[in-house]
């Protein structure tokens, strides 16, 4: 078993944990955390395959993609947080209303 295989298998598990969390958890913040965990799984698989394709240095294209991806994911999570906080202030809901 190689190093990259450990992390690529972990990435699959993380993605499934995230997707399960999106369905199962109710609170807005937990749903946002779940999507970030899903994103972490995707990024981990990218970087693990970059390490497999390494010659003198690891494949830089997935690294660059992941760096941009992290920043974009954080920007969208910030927007989601702003929406969640406004919804809580306006209505007092902490989860989507059809869950009640």
């Amino acid at each position, binding site marked *: 078993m190689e190093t990259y295989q*450990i992390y690529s298998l972990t990435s699959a598990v*993380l993605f499934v944990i995230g997707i399960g969390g999106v*369905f199962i958890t109710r609170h807005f913040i937990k749903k946002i955390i779940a999507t*970030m965990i899903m994103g972490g799984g995707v990024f981990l698989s990218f970087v693990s395959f*970059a390490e497999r394709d*390494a010659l003198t240095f690891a494949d830089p294209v997935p690294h660059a993609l992941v760096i941009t991806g992290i920043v974009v994911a954080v920007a969208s999570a910030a927007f989601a947080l702003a929406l969640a906080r406004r919804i809580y202030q306006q209505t007092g809901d*902490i989860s989507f209303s059809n869950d009640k």
Partner: protein
Amino acid sequence: MSLIIDGLLAILAIYLALQSLLAPRLTQSVFLFFAFGLALALAWIRLAAVDVAITEAAIAAGFLGVLFLDALRDFAPRIPAKNEAVQKQYSKSQTKSLFLPRLTLWAGLGLFLLIALEAVWKIPEGGGLTAAAGTLLPESGVENPVTAVLLNFRAYDTWLEMGVILIGLLAVFAAGGKMAYRKPGVASQDPLLRQVILFFTPVLFLFGAFLLYIGKTGPGGAFQAGVLWGAIGILLHLGGWPFIALMPRWLGQLLLTVGLGFFLVLGFLFMAAGGALFEYPPAYAGILILIIETLAAISIAAALSAIFALLNQIGEEADEIESTT
């Protein structure tokens, strides 16, 4: 031996991810998510992706963690009775849910896990752009391959991504309502906090500049430097110097757009000179990339600290409503 470390790190990441979703209290989940981000950063160092590790630790664990902590002011009510009522409502709604949908969900998730594991296990070898990046690296003007890809080979993507950050800021601005550009608050009363913030401001600035410069040869670059400079803005805001409100409006707008704008103007200039968009002449590529990175870092720092300031003001408005009622 190294496989044991990797295995333990993988188990730790999975455990932290599960716990951050299953923890009963919201505060616990936020802190466990913090720890999850740092565990992922360690995993990236193990995978020889130090650039990604710095970005993850700074943005995904640090900056996002700060945003979540700030959100806890809203969602972790200080009045326990309110919290208990919400909890009761929770447990009631949970018992009502049906057995069959749950079973289907778990079965589907299990099946999906198997498919995902098989997919990553069997992903075909070969491909990859390491060799192509390696042969073109001398023409890119920098020695760090990740910086070369980010700012030379795929500069178009990086340019669009800075646009995404700006759109993210505008979206937060739109969701935040009308309380932007508020009057500056009173500076923090705590003398120690003020001194620590005043001490860390130049240190963070210097460290950001170092990361920016070292990005040419080693791990570092515009995004990492931008987050560190953004941390200055966050610290100043928390210390009671809301510089977003203090600074003239045109200056803020200039800082936010200078990275994106300069990048675009430069790209079109080279297009007018007969090249492709973002095709730099190899002789000047190094210095051009350094200028672009500096301006990009300034824009990213301004955008991140403005996002934090806006989200923080959403919380402050809620506090005011709570105290008046």
